[in-house]
């Protein structure tokens, strides 16, 4: 069942569940952050509408900086603005920022300790028809390896809004990962969001949990659907939303592993180096258990509809079900 304490969207399992792109939540959050703090500025590399900065641009044109197609400049100018007390949010596609400005982010933002938020939109395979050059499948890894850099990957537009507002206040460099496609709304305004805190979104109605599913970002909905289906088939799981990849909630992850002794991770990302990899690092050091990794298996993406691609690259509900069954078997043997 949905964790009753978290006040998740009661209509989540309806056919007509509301669907909103995760990036849209960022746009709304940024506008709000701009209203709350006049030091918030927005920088964009020629993708204002795509990255949903348009709301901010309309309201605060004097705090918007158009960078053109220049991602290295995007983050280094932001570093300079942060040095003068601004709180810059820089947006582009995740493939190009952090893909094309990684060292500049490391040096001029993290090493330099300048409060800048890097916003990578169009992350994941669900970018769809644009194809493999535009589907960022490595950005979580790129960013979680930089010291002094938080990494947040919200599960829906509402969480994205909350994360944006939270990141405007932390005083620490951060990366915010966004997806392009419409995604069902999972949370509500009342659901809590806290940096460094993982939350259980789904749990068995009754009885012991057999497998822990840890998910981040846009696949959270599918993970919950899979859990519901498993429940119907008598397999009891918990679904943990790990939207805060850095800081990572070691305590909660280890507790889940201790409880289930089998973990499946789910992310729209390469399995190498991503969120699953971060979980594997935590468990190896604390409480090793069998794991299965749902994600892209060291391949490039391609054109197609988001759904086609998620199925093709084995990140859909059937693949999650299969992974849960596989890890269950490994646990027993």
């Amino acid at each position, binding site marked *: 069942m949905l964790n009753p304490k978290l006040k998740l969207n009661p209509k989540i399992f309806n056919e007509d569940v509301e669907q909103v792109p995760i990036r849209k939540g960022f746009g709304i959050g940024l506008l709000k952050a701009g209203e709350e703090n006049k030091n918030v500025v927005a920088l*964009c590399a*020629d*993708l*204002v*509408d*795509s990255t949903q900065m348009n709301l901010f641009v309309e309201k605060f044109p004097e705090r918007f900086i*158009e*960078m*053109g*197609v*220049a991602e*290295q*400049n995007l983050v280094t100018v932001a570093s300079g603005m942060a040095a003068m007390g601004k709180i810059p949010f820089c947006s582009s596609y995740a*493939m*190009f920022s952090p*893909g*094309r400005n990684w060292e500049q982010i490391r040096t001029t933002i993290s090493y330099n300790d300048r409060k800048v938020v890097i916003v990578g939109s169009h992350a994941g395979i669900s970018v*769809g*028809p*644009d*194809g*493999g*050059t*535009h589907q960022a499948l490595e950005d979580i890894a790129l960013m979680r390896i930089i010291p002094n850099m938080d990494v947040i990957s919200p599960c829906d537009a509402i969480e994205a809004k909350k994360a944006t507002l939270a990141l405007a206040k932390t005083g620490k460099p951060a990366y915010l990962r966004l997806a392009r496609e419409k995604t069902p709304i999972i949370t509500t305004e009342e659901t809590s969001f806290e940096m460094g805190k993982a939350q259980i979104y789904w749990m068995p109605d009754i009885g012991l949990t057999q497998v822990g599913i840890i998910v981040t970002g846009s696949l959270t909905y599918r993970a919950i659907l899979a859990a519901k289906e498993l429940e119907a088939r008598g397999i009891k799981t918990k679904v943990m939303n790990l939207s805060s990849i850095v800081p990572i909630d070691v305590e909660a992850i280890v507790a889940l592993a201790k409880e289930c002794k089998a973990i499946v991770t789910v992310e729209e990302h390469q399995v190498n180096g991503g969120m699953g990899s971060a979980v594997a690092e935590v468990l190896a050091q604390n409480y090793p258990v069998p794991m299965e990794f749902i994600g892209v298996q060291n391949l490039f993406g*391609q*054109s*197609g*509809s988001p759904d*086609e*691609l998620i199925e*093709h690259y084995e990140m859909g509900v059937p693949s999650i079900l299969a992974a849960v069954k596989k890890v269950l078997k490994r646990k027993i043997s």
Partner: protein
Amino acid sequence: MTALSKEKIKEFEIKANDIRQSIIEMLVEAKSGHTAGPLGMADIFTLFYFHILKHNPKNPSWADRDRLILSNGHICPVFYASMAHSGYFPIEELKTLRKFGSRLQGHPHREYLPFVENSSGPLGSGISQAAGMALADKIDGSTMLTTSGSTSFDKAQDKMLTTSTKDRYIYCFISDGELDEGNSWEGIMFAGKNKLNNLIVIVDRNNIQIDGNTEKVMPLEPLKDKWSAFNWHVIEVNGHDFNALNDGVLEAQKIIDKPIVIIAHTIPGKGVSFMEHDYKWHGMPPNKEQGEMALKELKDMAFKIKNA
């Protein structure tokens, strides 16, 4: 320069019109993709595929072919349509654009479509790749030549860069927006250093990018001065005038000590009146209705050309 015959020009105009119609049809079918750039570049692609390029659609991997590097991969509808119309693959296949399993990926991918020289999409990396190809040709072509350098290192390096003996050119098509990218300027500086006169870059100077007009988003002017200051030979032409374009390429082929850029002034959305000059058509496909309007306009134009 030798002017193209009237018949030739008429032939090109018809081809370009066909290609524009294909672009509209594929985009309507795909329901996503880029419109303005491809329409604006249709005349240039036509001239290249049907006149300038040394290529063989029946033997695409012919070793001695010219190389065409498309840097701004997002305009691939015009690239694919030109390939189909010149015989690389059936025109029917254009309808698969951006669909799952298609060879016509949203941005060109040579693993799927081996006829493209380079997979692209991310902007600003094409000039460098083309420069690398041009340099490789110089190295291969120069093995037999003697040189004038002073030290043995200088001599060897001079030799490497002596005018290519390979009888082909590396053409690179780029957009104006991608001149915002530092990678472009690194490549431009490098090609200038190496005097790559076998490299000819064509800039789609259509004055738009995603967020608006280039001179507002990130001004490029004085663009000619920029290239000159990076040691390139600069030619400016009207990108819709086949004669001017052809002359530009002929002039470029005669330059012996510099890489050449042809700044081709184009109209984004060219040929469809309600799209022309409007940056909003950068990455928006026509819907069914808009597609029909566009096709009607193009067909009317085709009729006019044929009966002129």
